[in-house]
């Protein structure tokens, strides 16, 4: 039926599961980093927190139903792609050039997600493709 949450059916449920795992791990990681050693590297740790929130919003958007959830998913997944490209690019340049020291393990998005098997780079592409494929006609 047309009121089915199209993004949350079939293979979409695998996508949501992966998003949920990233939401959990990125948020937990950022929480620990901020709680225990925020002063060491505030910018990467805040970026970790932003990434965690974006993954949570994407999970909610993809799992929810209706046009509002779909808009949320588009926004979150789109921002996620933007984030991984910007943070990834900044992090591979010399820290001296950018003035921001971001080690490969410091955020989910550093070095295009190298610390996470590049899944953070692939995930938003799959997400956008899935949102496009399931869009209402």
């Amino acid at each position, binding site marked *: 039926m047309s009121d089915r949450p199209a993004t949350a059916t*079939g293979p979409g*449920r695998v996508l949501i599961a992966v998003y949920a795992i990233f939401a959990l791990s990125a948020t937990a990681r950022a929480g620990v980093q901020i709680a225990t050693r925020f002063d060491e590297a505030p910018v990467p740790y805040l970026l970790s927190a932003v990434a965690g929130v974006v993954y949570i919003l994407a999970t909610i958007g993809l799992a929810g139903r209706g046009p509002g959830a779909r808009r949320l998913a588009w926004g979150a997944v789109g921002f996620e792609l933007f984030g991984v490209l910007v943070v990834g690019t900044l992090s591979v340049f010399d820290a001296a050039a950018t003035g921001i020291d971001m080690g490969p393990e410091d955020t989910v998005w550093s070095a295009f997600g190298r610390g996470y098997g590049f899944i953070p780079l692939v995930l938003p592409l799959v997400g956008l493709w899935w949102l496009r494929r399931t869009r209402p006609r």
Partner: protein
Amino acid sequence: MAVGRVVPVIAALVWVVVVAAGALAVFGLVTTALNRVPGRAMRLAVGGVVALLAVQAAVAAVLALTGPGVPELSTFLIYLVVSVCVLPIGWQFATAEPSRWSGAVIAAAAIGTAVAVVRLQGLWTAGV
């Protein structure tokens, strides 16, 4: 010191858990590839891996609380609890709408759990 004994115990348990979770992930992916809906065998497999995770978490928690200090003990304990909870939640989500993709959902949860356990062990060995 107990350090020399503790690490091999944990290392062996981590190995068992990671291999079991990996096998579960393969099982899930094969189920999806064969276009099947997860059944009783999958439920038993998930239950088995969760039981192993629970044993691992219990042993690690006891050793962490009684043995030489683990850095960020509370974080460590929270992660242990989460490592046990991910698969049951994944199972619920996978079977709420049974389809060929349910197996892949379980595989994702299993892989996530395995990675978390390996990371946890890294946290542990960094402390001793």
